[in-house]
């Protein structure tokens, strides 16, 4: 029984961390219409940044700054934001293909750099030697994992509330205006390029936060954690859940992560031994079909975006 519960806690922690990432992507794609093809790069910047800033000294690469955990996490978020700022500055004035390609390129280059630059972050061996916060007080057991899950859940709720407020605010309205009709927004004196940049950087900082939590959860990050696969998964979560709807984003994260874990388990359990090598390929075909199928038959996702009416007329008075 305790085994099942502790597995559920493990599952829910991962899904919640991914849900935070999906929320960040939703701000970029769902609310502003920015295609981020390199989600993992910003996620990875958060994870690497947090572990390098908060970890113990490691021979041979950067690290050992031993910052207090909140500062380390903040540093990871800033790293992700900085990267987004540079890429955004260069591409957001151009047609949308450029952002898609450049972000995809960032992800390839980031993974490539982390895999090769041993002096920077340990290369293929990854970053170790990170002490999870409050571990000495709480130990390593079930209690720690449960409390960590609760902390992640609280952060997820905080991010959700923040984004709901943001989307309902005049700024959120502006984002949707730029998404729907850039020229109309520009004609009203708004700067679409600046708005896009703000939204892109904010979304990437949230992606960095998710990455930082992910790194903290495993107390380890390596290039294996930032493969393009993760970009696909996070995208699938958003599309299935419903782009533009924050609740849809969270729902999609849990649904897709559940389906992914379950299909992986089922394949490893029931597929013949000689086919085990190919279960990964099969999972990717499935997730690709889910993405394409959703776009063709239900592009608004399971929980579609709700139309926000900023100023309601007064209800007709009943006499």
């Amino acid at each position, binding site marked *: 029984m305790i085994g099942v519960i502790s597995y559920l806690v493990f599952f829910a922690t991962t899904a919640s961390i991914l849900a935070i990432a999906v929320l960040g992507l939703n701000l970029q794609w769902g609310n502003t219409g920015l295609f981020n093809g390199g989600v993992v790069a910003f996620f990875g910047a958060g994870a690497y940044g947090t572990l390098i800033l908060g970890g113990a000294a490691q021979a041979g690469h950067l690290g050992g700054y031993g910052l207090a955990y909140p500062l380390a996490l903040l540093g990871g978020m800033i790293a992700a934001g900085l990267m987004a700022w540079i890429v955004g500055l260069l591409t957001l004035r151009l047609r949308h293909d450029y952002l*898609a390609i450049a972000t*995809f*390129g960032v992800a390839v280059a980031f993974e490539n750099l982390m895999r090769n630059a041993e002096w920077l972050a340990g290369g293929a061996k990854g970053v170790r030697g990170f002490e999870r916060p409050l571990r000495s007080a709480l130990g390593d057991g079930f209690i720690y994992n449960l409390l960590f899950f609760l902390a992640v859940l609280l952060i997820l709720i905080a991010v959700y509330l923040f984004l709901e407020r943001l989307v309902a605010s005049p700024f959120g309205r502006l984002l949707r205006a730029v998404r729907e009709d850039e020229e109309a927004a520009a004609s009203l004196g708004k700067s679409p390029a600046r708005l896009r940049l703000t939204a892109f950087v904010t979304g990437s900082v949230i992606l960095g936060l998710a990455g930082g939590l992910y790194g903290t959860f495993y107390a380890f990050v390596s290039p294996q954690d930032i493969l393009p696969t993760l970009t696909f998964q996070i995208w699938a979560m958003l599309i299935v859940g419903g782009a533009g709807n924050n609740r849809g984003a969270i729902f999609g994260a849990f649904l897709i992560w559940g389906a992914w874990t379950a299909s992986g388990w089922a394949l490893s359990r029931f597929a013949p031994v000689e086919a085990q090598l*190919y279960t990964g390929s099969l999972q*990717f075909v499935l997730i690709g079909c889910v*993405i394409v199928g959703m776009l063709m038959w239900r592009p608004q996702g399971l929980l579609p975006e709700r139309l926000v009416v900023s100023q309601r007329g007064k209800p007709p008075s009943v006499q």
Partner: protein
Amino acid sequence: MIQNVIDGVLTGSYLSLGAIGLTLVMHILRFANFSHAELLSLGAYAALVCDALVTALAPVLAIKLAPLSLTWALGLAIVLSMVLTGLSAVVIDRLVFRRVRERGAELSMVFASFGMALVIRNIIGLIFGLSPKLYSQEIAFATVLSFDPLILVKPDQVFVLLAALVLMFALHLVLSRTTFGYSLRAVAENPALAQINGVNLARTIVAVWLIGGGLAAVAGIFYGMSHQIIPVMGRDLVLPIFAATIVGGIGSVYGAVLGGFIVGLAGNLALLVLPAGYTPSVPFLLILAVLILRPHGLFGEARA
């Protein structure tokens, strides 16, 4: 240094072929097609199958065209694979991209292509296995052009370069000298106006996919001849091809050709200053440099 330049030009020849199709699709259908590189692997595997079929049906054709490792059978397979890959591109458009396009969600196209790339790549892996394959098991010996400095060129590589140049020249003639070429450019400039003037939009789109798919097939086969055929080759080629289109300017066929050679050269020359592990990052650095210095590429023009 000279060896790097030669290798770079050879790499450039297949990157250019891949980039031409991509830039045409991006220009006319207005989306960054992340599944284009999968057409390269599709073409490479189609040629592998056709080669085996032709050899089995007509063993006479399995004669090598000395000094190349290319056989008559593989030559025929290349043509068959071009047709098959072009048709597959049309079918994929019919099944997926056209439906998404007709829903009016232009931005979703990028994402649909992401999904399609994943599906195609992994289905290829499921059918053909994950291990690398080769067209010819024999070792192709390189011809020594010079001993000091040591410069090696395989006859196959010369063939690849020449064939690529011939194809590009043929495409140039089609685009600049035929009515079809004009209508293609008209659609790219202004689809609505082109239609008013009697250009059949649906047919033009089919033609673009046929050309793009056919050239992608050749590019994939040439990549397979120079390296090896693996299911993940599309994943490794997608960024270099995108970089070629951005360097040349999205929509410019001549830009794509030049961009392909620049990306190929840059990747090989980077070996002189950077450890080999960093080669996959070079296209991204080129993209960054172009975006900073000349955002619309060498031959591109600003277009919203």
